[in-house]
């Protein structure tokens, strides 16, 4: 696990403190060095990968303007890196790949930390320059920082050049930024180790041994996975944005209460915003623009291609394609039924319509996530089959509570109820928590209570890596 491991916490304290005192002139040098140290600590191969890719894209960008061949070469190489990353991830499935390689070889090279995230940024950079929307960066240090800025290198957020580059020269660290960043970071740690990591054993139990459980138990496990994924990734994002803020950078928001979406298209405007923004800018819009004469068919094609690419980006495997297919179906249905839905919403009480919509969207997302989490498509179908057979367990304690609590002891039950209580409260008071996390004021009691909750209920000994680190 990264960001909340002790050595990384010490590293963060040192970097944030020094960065505050370093002259703005040398800040980008300092942060690049810190980023290299961070990536190098993770693995030397990852560091070499980021240096090589940054160097390659920096130099190619200088000569790319008007050179179609060079542009396509750049795109292909960056895309190839992403595909190879995912391919090698699959072949090394089950292995802690970050530390599994000791010698320098191509296998270790392509499983470099965050490669599929900064490759997307590099594609965006090359495209912006090719289409003359952005001028090539002259300073390699600045470009290196765009690639390797450590708060975002692990799993994003994916930043476009126009969003990140101007911040380098204007970088300022204020007390407000430090406080706001710290609040955000603390909430991120809480989401990750108090909520996501606590739900992890239940999800593992249902997804990996689900054939033994009844329908409702399986469905509860499926719901919990979506909630775990949300808190894991939004927790990571809060930590990344918090650290970025403390270092003087405003990174892009990735989540905007996605589990309250009333449509799947709204869900994708609220979930992993930076990645979907990238796909929309560089795949969906160009495609729909080219096919604009076909009207709805153009939009449908855009949806299909965007989600197929998104599926491949997440991993080369039928499970991710099935996940993408689910969303293609949902979004296509929404596109085709837009008029009907608008007229229906006018006839039904607004609150009821919204509540039903949220419920349907949440279930649709959970259903697609079965494929996202399962080891194979067969396993996913098996889980779906289980979720509708023997719906209620014969014994609720052994058939429902024990599998989700991962054990039949009182202590397991106690932990499970605590997890549900914390998770439910956080979902209920999500907006209020978010407001406190974004606050620029030092709220003594907020910090104290969150810290106490982390100490009381955080998983320190056996925490999970961030789920999105695998992509």
């Amino acid at each position, binding site marked *: 696990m990264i960001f909340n491991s002790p050595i990384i916490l010490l590293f963060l304290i040192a970097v944030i403190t020094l960065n505050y005192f370093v002259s703005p002139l040398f800040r980008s040098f300092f942060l690049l060095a810190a980023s290299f140290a961070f990536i190098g600590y993770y693995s030397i191969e990852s560091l070499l990968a980021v240096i090589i890719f940054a160097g390659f894209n920096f130099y190619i960008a200088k000569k790319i303007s008007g050179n179609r061949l060079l542009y396509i070469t750049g795109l292909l190489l960056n895309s190839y890196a992403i595909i190879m990353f995912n391919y090698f991830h699959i072949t090394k499935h089950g292995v802690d790949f970050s530390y599994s390689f000791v010698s320098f070889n191509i296998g270790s090279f392509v499983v470099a930390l965050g490669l599929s995230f900064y490759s997307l940024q590099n594609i965006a950079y090359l495209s912006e320059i090719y289409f003359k929307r952005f001028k090539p960066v002259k300073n390699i240090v600045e470009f290196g920082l765009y690639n390797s800025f450590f708060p975002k290198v692990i799993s994003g957020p994916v930043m476009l050049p126009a969003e990140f580059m101007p911040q380098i020269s204007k970088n300022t660290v204020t007390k407000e930024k430090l*406080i706001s960043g710290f609040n955000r970071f603390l909430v991120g740690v809480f989401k990750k180790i108090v909520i996501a990591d606590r739900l992890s054993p239940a999800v593992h139990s249902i997804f990996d041994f689900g054939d033994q459980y009844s329908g409702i138990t399986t469905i509860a496990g499926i719901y919990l996975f979506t909630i775990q994924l949300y808190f894991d990734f939004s927790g990571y994002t809060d930590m990344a944005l918090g650290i970025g803020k403390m270092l003087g950078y405003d990174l892009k928001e990735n989540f905007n209460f996605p589990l309250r979406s009333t449509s799947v298209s709204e869900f994708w405007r609220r979930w992993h915003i930076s990645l979907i923004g990238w796909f929309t800018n560089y795949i969906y819009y160009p495609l729909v623009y080219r096919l604009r004469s076909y009207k709805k068919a153009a939009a449908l094609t855009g949806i299909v291609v965007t989600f197929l690419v998104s599926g491949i980006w997440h991993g080369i495997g039928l499970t991710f394609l099935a996940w993408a297919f689910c969303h293609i179906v949902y979004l296509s249905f929404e596109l085709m039924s837009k008029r009907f839905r608008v007229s229906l919403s006018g006839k039904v009480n607004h609150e009821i319509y919204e509540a039903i919509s949220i419920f349907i969207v949440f279930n649709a997302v959970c259903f697609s996530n079965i494929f996202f989490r399962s080891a194979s498509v067969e396993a996913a179908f098996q889980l779906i089959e289980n979720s509708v057979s023997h719906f209620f367990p014969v014994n609720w304690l052994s058939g429902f509570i024990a599998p989700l609590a991962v054990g039949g002891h009182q202590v397991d039950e106690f932990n499970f109820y605590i997890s549900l209580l914390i998770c439910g409260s956080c979902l209920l008071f999500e907006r209020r928590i978010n407001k406190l996390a974004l606050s620029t004021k030092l709220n003594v009691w907020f910090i104290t209570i969150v810290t106490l909750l982390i100490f009381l209920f955080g998983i320190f*000994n056996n925490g999970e890596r961030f789920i999105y680190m695998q992509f």
Partner: protein
Amino acid sequence: MSFSIHRAKKRDTRSDKLEVSSSRPSFRRSYREQLKKLNNIQKISFTIIITLLLLSGLGRLYDFGLHHNANIKAAYVQSAKIDAALLIHGPCEPLWMISPKTLYVQTGIKSYNLALSHSDFADNYLHLYFYLKGNKAPRYLFLYVTPESMDPKYNTFNTYRFASFLGDPVVDSVVKECDPAYYKWIMIPFMKYAFYNNTINFEALQGMKHYFGKRTIPYYPDGYEPPIQRVWDNHLEEFIHLYPQGYNFNWDRLREKYLCKTIELAQRSGIKVYLYESPVLKEAVPYQPNRQQITGKIEAIAGKYGIKYVRFENMKIAESRKYYMSALNTNMEGSRIFTDSLGRYIKNEMTAGN
């Protein structure tokens, strides 16, 4: 008209009240105002101090709870006068198999089951140390040792069981050696409990409940716990699926070290030590190619200390699954038969004058 006068009067009294209350601000309001007046550095210092104080307070509360939890063997054996003549020790196999009541029928001596599930020898060593701190040394110690006990894939050192006993140099040295990742954190207030809070929260709360309910006797007063799972658990099938060619046991040096330390601690206290192995389901043995070799190494350790390594491999129950829950754990009926045999063995040893 009268209504508006009445309203006006009411407003007057309210403003009077307000004036009175503002001249004598409540503690809460004055506290908030004071907090607002603090600058950031003062607020940070205040937050750190408050957090540290609360964490230290919680630490004390957990210490109290854990020391009063009658179900925690480490706490119970130090506070209760058990003074058994025979100790049964090891991981879940002896814990779930050997009932001191059944042993008493055969031997006529008081015994206590000190075993704990998933425990390795370092865990066993510290529990024996705690027992000897609070009780007279027993005459006999039967310690469960099998090739599985020497392999780090089986059982573990359960640090959380010792969190409330840190500060004792013996405990500190074992914890430092067996769980260095944990030991690095414990200088932070409350972290010794926070690190394994998933287990400790419940135990501390249970301890409070025991204290307020004046409970001093554990749920299992003689230490023996009947198993929760009492039917065949399919672990052997999973094992064979995982290792169709069989699994070779590893020999862990740390396990060996703490096995020796446990024997030495017992012998220093004048206890006669027996290492023993309960019957292993015969159909599992072909999938463990080096079982005999590892058993030989255990016998060598027993020889080094001049003690017996008693193996019950030839018992009839080892031939049938109907007496087992897994390859190593017998079910209730199997346990009763085995405990009878063990009791007879102990009685023979006693009559032989050992």
